[in-house]
């Protein structure tokens, strides 16, 4: 599976016009962790193991000095997660959800909906974080499928669980 972060706006047209450049955030978050494009990432989805190749366009690393580290991790994780959910299920961004909905994004595909909760981590606590995020998205009461995705940047890793 190939996840081309630089193709994100071509895939998720609803992201066009966002002041946050998610693809760049994903690229910078991976570069910050010492990776170069392309990088092989472990994937685990509902207990099934696999791998993905994440690709991105290089950006000036000087930008790293001017961005909020936590936001970069979260925005970078959203970039990877949105690329991943499209790759596995052709899901497309409909809109962002407010916190009270217990998920970050509403995605849609052929009349079906998915509430997606995303988190990123620069430490080795991806599995613990996934459990937290699963608990969180389990509170989402929207008539939609629910999924938590955690992106680890140190050892590139995408953990996903349908709730």
């Amino acid at each position, binding site marked *: 599976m190939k996840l081309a972060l630089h193709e994100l706006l071509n895939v998720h047209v*609803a992201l066009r*016009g966002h002041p946050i450049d998610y693809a760049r955030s994903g690229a910078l978050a991976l570069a910050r962790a010492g990776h170069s494009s392309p990088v092989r990432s472990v994937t685990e989805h509902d207990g099934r193991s696999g791998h993905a190749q994440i690709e991105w366009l290089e950006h000036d690393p000087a930008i790293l000095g001017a961005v909020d580290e936590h936001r970069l991790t979260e925005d970078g994780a959203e970039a990877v997660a949105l690329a991943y959910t499209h790759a596995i299920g052709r899901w497309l961004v409909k809109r962002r959800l407010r916190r*009270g*909905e217990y998920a970050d994004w509403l995605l849609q595909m052929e009349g079906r909906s998915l509430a997606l909760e995303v988190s990123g981590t620069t430490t080795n606590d991806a599995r613990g974080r996934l459990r937290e995020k699963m608990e969180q998205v389990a509170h989402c009461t929207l008539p939609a499928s629910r999924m938590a995705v955690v992106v680890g940047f140190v050892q590139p890793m995408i953990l996903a669980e349908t709730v």
Partner: protein
Amino acid sequence: MTEAVVETLSENDLDTLVSIAIRRAEVLEDVGSASAEEAWLEVLAYEERLAAITPAADIAGGIARAGAVHAALAAGRREDAERLARKFLSDPSLTPERRAAIERAIEEDGRRLAAHFPALAKTGRLSEVQNWRREVAKAAGVFPRAA
């Protein structure tokens, strides 16, 4: 963006704008910025319009209706939130889950206000906070202008 302009926007445009506005409002709220309420007003404008153009029974319509009520509360416009909640809850096609989401938003705001103003809550005078907020919102600034 004026109301007239918002009315010309498509659902897709509004989805993008509300996504950006929610993100901004939540970031401003996180850092305790005084601009957060203004940012939630922008969310309110988009959610209200989305609520007007989407059926209550649809997932998008349900999200917009609960979102509009929440945004009004977050912007400190509890009366507007209650007016919107009454309007949305009177629609029989609104799903029970969305009814609960709207009611929960109102209740949570009430609890939040009570936690901020325990003395007023204890004596049943929380409405005074709303009266004060309404007066402040009407004024051009918090302090009266000289001449």
